[in-house]
């Protein structure tokens, strides 16, 4: 059997898993704090908007979003497979297309800022 090309999807998945583990809990906590009116100093809306306006800021935000989406899509694909859903091709296509579409949307929104 030939070597697999799975690294194409697995490597960004591994990167996405790492990003999700490190960044998403922090982002969720900060969002929750902001929702109840406690925005930590230095993370005010204007300051974060300035970060999003900077090209490096755009790249960082896009990387976090795109990798997290890809990581989640691949994890969900594996979960479907583990639960015995034997239509892996279709599941993979739907989830990966969703991840790519949402990433493009995020990229478009960032470029439009």
């Amino acid at each position, binding site marked *: *059997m*030939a*070597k*697999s*090309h*799975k*690294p*194409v999807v*697995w*490597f960004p998945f*591994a990167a996405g898993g790492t990003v999700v583990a490190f960044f998403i809990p922090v982002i969720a906590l900060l969002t929750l704090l902001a929702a109840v009116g406690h925005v930590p100093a230095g993370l005010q809306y204007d300051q974060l908007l300035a970060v999003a306006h900077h090209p490096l800021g755009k790249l960082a935000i896009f990387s976090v979003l795109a990798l997290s989406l890809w990581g989640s899509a691949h994890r969900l694909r*594996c*979960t479907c*497979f*583990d639960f*015995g859903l034997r239509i892996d091709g279709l599941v993979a296509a739907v989830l990966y297309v969703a991840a790519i579409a949402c990433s493009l949307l995020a990229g478009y929104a960032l470029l439009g800022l």
Partner: protein
Amino acid sequence: MKERTVQLEVLRYNPDTDSEPHFQRYEVVCQDEWVVLDALNEVKETLDPTLNYRWSCHMAVCGSCGMMINGEPKLACHTFLRDYPGVIRVEPLAHFPIERDLVTTPDDFMEKLKRVKPYLIPKKPKPLEAGEYRQTPAQLTKFRQYSMCINCMLCYAACPEYGLSPHFIGPAAITLAHRYNQDSRDGGRDERQEVIATQEGVWECTFVGACSEVCPGHVDPASALQQVKILSCFDWIGEHLLPGGKK
């Protein structure tokens, strides 16, 4: 010594007379410090000499007495009766064909084990006069944990991927391939990668982690498979994206 009457519900199957497996219940007087294997031996010696199961060392070294105990893959010699208050259900290892009673056919695992070449393939021939191969403690540490596998196949019985896709090479065989790939004396990685860096190899694994939970030798096959995935990714980048790659 405290004694207790234990109820064992054992899966029985005789291919000569039974059309399908069935459970048989035994009541057996056991001592408190006995393991499930002692109870099975007591059944065989005093109640039913027709009961079949494999065992050898009685000390979690040989890996022969793997079976499902209350639905979990365990070594019968390493599973204490005192941890099971009610009826104890004993079945053959999941995901393997039953040969008779608790005895399963390990042929699939043995064939996969052979395919991954779990032995040292020297980088170049070295005559005896050239002396021994030397390793630093750091070089030994890289693979020592993965060399503790006793081939008990509990990880195969626990792995849902192997249950769903029987062509999956599986946790123990890939871990042993990784064990030799990580050995500084070995030069056979390219040959093994052709077998394990495939869809039916490491890429069938979705990192459920059940293999590491049930492993009686604390080998942690899940970590070995994750390392194989990462290293296979670097191989793929080298082979497909860097100039001068092999493919």
